[in-house]
């Protein structure tokens, strides 16, 4: 009888001590879990493209929950995802317009040529480092498709020697912008369709020597524009997307036909 009593007491004591220990360690090593982080992670697309600047969607979710990243910081998810994250975080998502990549070069094989014959790694960045300039135009697309290689959405194709963006597929992650050694790609608001498709900053006659489709910096577009939305600086026209109402007057008047609505390859 006595054995049973002693055993019960000992077990009860052990239970109390272990319980107290558990309570102590539970408090001591408590990890603050933000439930919103998991919720945000659920909403994010989950393709870990890294376009937001964080190391994948988990890191992005943590950053949003801590308030270190904006709720509309995911370029892939766009407005719908931003709205949902905004609801979770209790802030309104002033969703930015979807932006898509645009290659500012029209230098296809018909209008410009390569100098010599490049043999080596099939990569624009490697070719740019080879010590010689592969294309005749110092500024133009080399067409080895490094942008297409880095694109997580398979949205860029090299067509006839120049990279072309599939606007429907592009999620505006900007990886191609970073990869292009000639800095030809920029992100433009999707609705804007009047864009200068050239990056050559040389004077007109020199541009004409190397490419028949280049901007010669004549300034006709600037004179035509009633909205102060296109300017020629450094021998190259550029559009101010905020002012541009897309009347299309400069597109019609451009002698080099370099201000164009972007053509897009579709599926």
């Amino acid at each position, binding site marked *: 009888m006595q054995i049973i009593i002693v055993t019960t007491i000992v077990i009860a004591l052990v239970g109390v001590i272990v319980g107290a220990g558990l309570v102590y360690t539970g408090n001591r090593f408590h990890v603050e879990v933000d439930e919103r982080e998991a919720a945000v992670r659920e909403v994010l697309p989950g393709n870990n493209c890294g376009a937001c600047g964080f190391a994948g969607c988990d890191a992005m979710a943590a950053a949003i929950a801590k308030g270190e990243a904006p709720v509309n910081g995911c370029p892939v998810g766009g407005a719908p995802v931003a709205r949902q994250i905004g609801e979770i975080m209790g802030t309104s998502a002033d969703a930015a317009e979807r932006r898509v990549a645009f290659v500012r070069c029209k230098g296809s094989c018909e209008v410009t040529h390569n100098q*010599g014959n490049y*043999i080596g*790694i099939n990569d624009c*960045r490697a070719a740019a*480092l080879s*010590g010689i300039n592969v294309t005749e135009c110092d500024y133009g697309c080399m067409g080895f498709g490094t942008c297409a290689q880095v694109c997580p959405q398979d949205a860029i194709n090299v067509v006839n020697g120049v990279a072309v963006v599939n606007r429907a597929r592009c999620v505006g992650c900007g990886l191609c912008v970073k990869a292009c050694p000639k800095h030809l790609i920029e992100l433009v608001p999707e609705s804007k369709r009047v864009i200068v498709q050239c990056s050559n900053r*040389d004077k007109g006659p*020199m541009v004409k020597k190397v490419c028949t489709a280049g901007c010669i910096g004549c300034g006709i577009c600037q004179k035509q524009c009633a909205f102060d939305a296109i300017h020629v600086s450094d021998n190259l026209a550029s559009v101010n997307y905020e002012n541009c109402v897309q009347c299309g007057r400069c597109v019609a008047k451009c002698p080099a036909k370099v201000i164009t609505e972007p053509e897009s390859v579709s599926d």
Partner: protein
Amino acid sequence: MRKTFRGGVHPAYHKELSREQALRPFEAKGEMVYPLAHHIGKPAKPVVKKNDPVLVGQRIAEADGYVSANIFSACSGKVKAVEKRRTLSGTMQECVVIDNDGQYAKAEGFGTREDVSGLTNQQIVDRVRDAGIIGLGGAGFPTHVKLSPKAPDDIKYVIANGAECEPYLTCNDQLMRTQADAIVEGLELMLRLFKNAHGVVAIEDNKPVAIAAMTQAAQGHNRIRVLTMDTKYPQGGEKSLISAIAGKDYPARMLPADVGCIVENVGTILAIQRAVVFREPLFTHCFTLTGDAVKNPGNYMVPDGASFAELLEYSGGLKEGVTLKKALAGGPMMGIAMASLDVPIQKMNNGLTLLTDDPAETAEAQMTACLHCGRCTTVCPLGLMPQLMADAIVDKDMDRFENRLYGLECMQCGSCSYICPAKRPLTQMFKQAKAEITARKRAEAGGKK
């Protein structure tokens, strides 16, 4: 002192094409083009305008900053324009273009021997700087910067680089045969700057005539000795020479001066002698025109700014009935493939190799997967492991490439690409990976500010 470094390769040298051809002057008749960014560092600022008359040896652009160099005209005539021209790299660069009148009328103020025994060290360096001397071995680093290390008394060796390990090229060989006394005098001038240093003239053993000439010229000069090196590529690389002569290896972030060495090409040393003793600025240098497509291979003293195409025409052009498949500024190992011959010769261009066959094309057709034979590791003069480095690049593991395989130490000598039986473009991969890492580091450093 050892005779060579660890690793290296033995490419076919083909020096017999132009070895016995004496250095001849080349007087260009066509217009001369001077890129303002002809050296490492900041581009020079032009000091002439359109229609200004110029003479041989007249300064046409001045150094803009400490790591920069003056540029001098090698012809007389008048300035045609200061405009963008296509250069060796294929890009358009700002250049001074001179309409050559073919008279070669000289400017005043140089050409007579002066007594230089009373010059201070600073005066010697100033004369070198004023003469616009840059390294003629290939990189084009301003020489006055090299001659002004932080601790001049710690310099143990001043190495005159006459190795000329690049296949095909022979102009330094000829230069040492004919100008041995002047080179020794130039080396003595450099030794005056470094009181604890010894002068070493390093020559590969495939140039016996040059070795004999230099040995004779160096007789009676206690601080100078001629060292016969093994013939092996890249013997003439700065790191290879220092490894052999001083027995020191150093990482990429250090300069030769940090391990007590100054390495100058023999052509540069001759230019130093001309600049200090004759006050002559640098506007000509030695040059080899060679290759199996050339009718008359030879060695020339070329004026800066003349066109490669004009030199070829002057020499007699291509052989009849051959098609030019590959043009290289320099030799086949370190040279730059050219898209057009109609570009100006710059100071650091020491050769033009014209071939009837394009080895790069052949190699690309034969390329296979890596065989893991390890030959690249055997030949790497820096003891790197190119095969593992290439694996890391394919895996996009730049951290492994940089921190575990020391990829940034690669000096891109091309030995691994040369020896690779699978014809993998190893050197190009490393060059690209290095550029990517440096760009990322620069961006990070910029972000921190």
